[in-house]
């Protein structure tokens, strides 16, 4: 039973759900489902609905409505509204017939002129709205009324000519009734239009500017976007697309009735809203507009075919729209909250009681005062020195929480200078053979700084896990690193599900969200070596260069991953059930290793780790500041050897000057101490250490 529960919590479907909801393409899920549902409903309710001829007929009738919806979408995405699309569509329909069939102009000229007409109507709208600062609703309503009135006038005036038109050419008929690969030409045109406008809005600068202006006019202006021109262009595009729809309609119908395009602007508006495009602008896609249009079209045509009376059809559509839009609005608004509620998925972690840390308990972990009198370096001159390292000239390098690498100059470390500014949150540090300073940066990847201070990127992506929904190819939270004798860089990514600021949530999960990654500078290839590790940390090459030591912070373990020798490629547990949460590991001068405990285990937190549902409820019910978390106000430093035996510990009782110890570095007889949240670097003299030992020699000058 227990193992079943454990299995459940380790592989909870909630994980999948959480990562699914995170996907951008989940936003139009409601219109998408509704489209499928409506289609399936009519496929079942109407005989022969699925026959190719029936489907072709449907598509043929739908295409122009889809185009008008796309035209409407442009204006709405830009933050406005274009009510004149229906009238422009109707007028374009008339113009195409008049210019081509009555005046006999060549077809290409006709098409260009009609689209120019649409663009001109859009220019009137856009000019007034963008430059005249009129309201989109009123402006386009006026244009709608004027164009509609003109249309009614001209159709009456040319009734006789329209009634006696000649049939057009083959190309004209092909536009109206032809098929490309079985798809009606106008539908094919809609598909091309939708794909190209989608591409335009998401990938091409003027299109992206339309979205930007729609999202926030002010922010777009501050970003240097010419807001007026962009608005103007959005209406011109909208009018042109509406006119294009009119051309296809003319080719199909060869007639221009008084009711052509009546109410299409309302249908288009409903389609856009149903598709989930925000009326406030800036949010939505062309695909959503087309989906919304498809739903409305299928409902209307389907109910007509079912023989339902017109009034009832309208009422049913109204109700469905209301419900769908209501749902969609709630969904778009609350998707983030739902995601928040389901994303954190704690797993079951069993802990044995750890060795005692009580003073005088006789264990190597017993509390003592050895760090109490640590000398403070850089007091209040540094914010959050997660890792520290010393170069061959004894200068001290550390990371700052603002994204820079700070150097304190030897010998007294009074002079502070910014060595490099990279950004992100720099964490683990290491020197390679050529004295390049390599640094893991949360949110960015692994970067390097040459001795002449030039910054270069080492890697920011690795192989993607194919079985996972979430794209984990980008490095989320590179944490600590070390360099192997062959120059390969081994580094840990602590979590692929959370950013550094949310480390506590990763802790609540206690799941293997992190990985060990290897980058080979010789080939430039980055590959994931070990997956599903619980907050891997403390990467350190063993003294013999044959293995990488890594710590699992949440599981309080030290592991060894063999990179050479007979066991190369395998990982083994070196120390289990430590009394603290492990952070960085670094070499000691006596052939052992220093390990920083970022915090101490507390019995209550251990108990909570055995209760995944308790942690889930806690995350949901109480505010983040009140969450129970690992006791990281108290840390200590311990030393262990290659056999996994802990030999001693160094304490700062009460965590007065060194709470949250995340790193330690031995250099020439001194031990340097850094902390993720601290305002200083500590230093103590090690009485029994080799005063000439430095890490660079240990790594690169071995016989």
């Amino acid at each position, binding site marked *: 039973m227990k193992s079943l529960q454990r299995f459940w919590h380790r592989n909870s479907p909630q994980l999948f759900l959480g990562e699914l909801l995170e996907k951008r393409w989940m936003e139009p899920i409601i219109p998408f489902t509704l489209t499928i549902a409506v289609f399936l409903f009519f496929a079942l309710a109407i005989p022969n609905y699925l026959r190719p001829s029936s489907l072709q007929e449907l598509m043929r009738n739908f295409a122009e409505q889809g185009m008008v919806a796309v035209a409407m979408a442009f204006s709405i995405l830009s933050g406005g509204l274009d009510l004149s699309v229906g009238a422009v569509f109707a007028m374009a329909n008339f113009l195409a017939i008049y210019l081509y069939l009555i005046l006999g102009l060549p077809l290409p000229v006709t098409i260009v002129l009609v689209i120019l007409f649409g663009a001109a109507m859009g220019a009137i709208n856009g000019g007034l709205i963008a430059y005249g600062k009129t309201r989109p609703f009123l402006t386009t309503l006026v244009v709608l009324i004027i164009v509609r009135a003109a249309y009614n006038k001209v159709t009456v005036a040319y009734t006789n000519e329209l009634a006696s038109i000649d049939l057009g050419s083959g190309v004209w008929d092909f536009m109206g009734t032809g098929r490309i690969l079985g798809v009606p030409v106008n539908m094919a045109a809609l598909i091309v239009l939708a794909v190209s406008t989608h591409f335009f809005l998401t990938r091409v600068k003027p299109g992206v500017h339309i979205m930007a202006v729609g999202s926030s006019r002010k922010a777009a202006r501050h970003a240097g976007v010419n807001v007026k021109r962009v608005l103007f262009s959005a209406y011109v595009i909208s009018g042109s697309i509406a006119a294009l729809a009119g051309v296809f309609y003319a080719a199909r119908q060869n007639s221009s009735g008084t009711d052509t395009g009546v109410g299409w602007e309302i249908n288009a508006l409903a389609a856009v809203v149903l598709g989930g495009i925000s009326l406030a602008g800036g949010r939505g896609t062309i695909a959503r507009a087309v989906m919304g249009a498809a739903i409305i079209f299928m409902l209307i045509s389907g109910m007509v075919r079912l023989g339902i009376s017109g009034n009832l059809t309208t009422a049913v559509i109204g109700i469905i729209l209301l419900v769908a839009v209501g749902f969609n609005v709630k969904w778009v608004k609350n998707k983030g909250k739902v995601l928040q509620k389901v994303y954190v998925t704690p797993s079951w972690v069993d802990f044995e009681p750890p060795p005692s*840390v009580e003073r005088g308990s006789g264990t190597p972990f017993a*509390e003592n005062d050895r760090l109490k009198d640590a000398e403070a370096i850089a007091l209040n001159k540094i*914010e*959050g020195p997660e890792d520290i390292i010393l170069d061959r000239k004894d200068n001290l390098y550390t990371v700052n929480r603002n994204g820079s690498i700070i150097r304190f100059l030897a010998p007294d470390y009074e002079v502070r200078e910014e060595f490099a500014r990279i950004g992100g949150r720099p964490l683990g540090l290491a020197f390679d053979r050529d004295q390049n300073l390599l640094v893991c940066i949360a949110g960015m990847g692994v970067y390097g700084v040459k001795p002449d201070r030039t910054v270069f990127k080492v890697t920011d992506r690795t192989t993607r896990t194919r079985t996972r929904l979430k794209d984990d190819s980008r490095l989320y939270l590179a944490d600590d690193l070390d360099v192997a004798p062959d120059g390969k860089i081994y580094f840990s990514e602590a979590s692929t599900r959370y950013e550094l600021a949310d480390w*506590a949530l990763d802790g609540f999960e206690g799941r293997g969200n992190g990985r060990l990654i290897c980058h080979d500078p010789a080939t430039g290839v980055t590959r994931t070596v070990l997956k599903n590790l619980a907050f891997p940390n403390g990467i350190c090459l063993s003294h013999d260069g044959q293995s990488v030591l890594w710590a699992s912070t949440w599981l309080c373990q030290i592991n060894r991953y063999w990179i050479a020798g007979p066991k190369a490629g395998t990982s083994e547990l070196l120390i289990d059930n430590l009394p603290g949460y492990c952070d960085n590991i670094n070499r000691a001068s006596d052939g052992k290793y220093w390990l920083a405990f970022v*915090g*101490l*285990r*507390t*019995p*209550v*937190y251990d*108990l*909570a780790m055995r*209760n995944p549902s*308790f942690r889930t*409820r*806690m995350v949901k*019910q*109480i*505010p*983040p*500041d*009140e*969450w*129970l*978390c*690992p*006791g*990281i*106000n*108290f840390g200590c430093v311990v030393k262990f050897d290659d056999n996994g035996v802990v030999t001693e510990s160094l304490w700062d009782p*009460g*965590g007065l*000057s060194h*709470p*949250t110890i995340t790193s330690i570095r031995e250099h020439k007889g001194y031990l340097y101490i850094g902390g993720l*949240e*601290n*305002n*200083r670097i500590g230093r103590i003299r090690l009485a029994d250490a080799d005063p000439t030992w430095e890490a660079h020699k240990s790594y690169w000058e071995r016989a």
Partner: protein
Amino acid sequence: MSLLGDIIDRVLFPNREIHGIPVLDGAFSPNQRLDQARRLGGEIERPDDIAPGPDGALYVSTGNRILRCTGDDFDAREVFATLDGPVGGLACLPDGRLLACVSGRGLIALSPSGEIVGKLESVGGGTIACPLSVTAAPDGAVYLTDGSRTNAPELWLTDLMQNRAPSGRLIACNSALGGAKVVADRLAWPLGVAVSADGREIWVAESWTHRLTAFAPDGGGKRIIVKNYTGYPGRLDRSASGEAWMAFLALRTQLTEFVLRERAFCEEMMRTVPSELWIGPALDGRLNPREPTQIGRIKKLGIQKPWAPPRSYGLVARLDADGEAAETWHSRVDGRVHGVTTIRRIGSRVLAVSKGRDCLVELPLGRGAQEG
């Protein structure tokens, strides 16, 4: 599912009172005035209550003993009596006798020379095993509170975390400790008790239900004065002018309230973890490396934020004649006067004991100290 339950609950019981934690606001706005309190004399080991004697001396209960303190700053201290159980609430009678609540024993009266001269060990056939506080009314009646039927006063945290049905009592007797009767029953750890100046009402502060209630001496006329405090109210003191003083053991936190709802987790925690490491309020603010930590308490750049979720806290309040807080003194999370169990007005001075930090302090009074 819980969301659905909440919605149904809101629909069916729209007026149900939500007993959430109030924000420290109004008169309870945080300040640092309690940290400015002057320490009187040296350390006293976990003092619990104080009582001024008619002779000007101050009696302090600590462990199994009662100290008699004299001098301007009460720094001349001698053991007045040693009893066979931890001593809690104290009160002096006008005739010089000292009443003391002794855990597991009941109420004991001591003569001015320290001899036991009277006892009240049971009421209505049941023992008084958890006496918390005692006070004397102007008409000579003595009111005693009994915290719980199941736990001794030292196990206050256990009693809170067990979250049982309230079983505390308010007991009245005469000045000879005879004629005891239960005035009110089913009280949730009634740590505070005070008689109004006119003797017509007895105010009782219940720690675990965070409220202040008034009872008539015959047990009728129950009236809730304040129904929801941010902290766990402790002892009450009433001065002749009508104002009252209230100490708070600690502040409630969202995490503690959450764990109180999580019964299975809470029971397992109580069974397997030593009580000083539980999630819950504490009196002392001294950090134990293995105590539970909350995100807001993580030190940033070496600083403990004063607004962090408080495991222990120092808070005392002056209440007006209607029981509303008029003025408060705080020692915030980074402060050093935590876990105040008693506050009493003695002449023109106001003294308090910090059980958490082992000291007797005198409060800074007056407006001048307010801008702290």
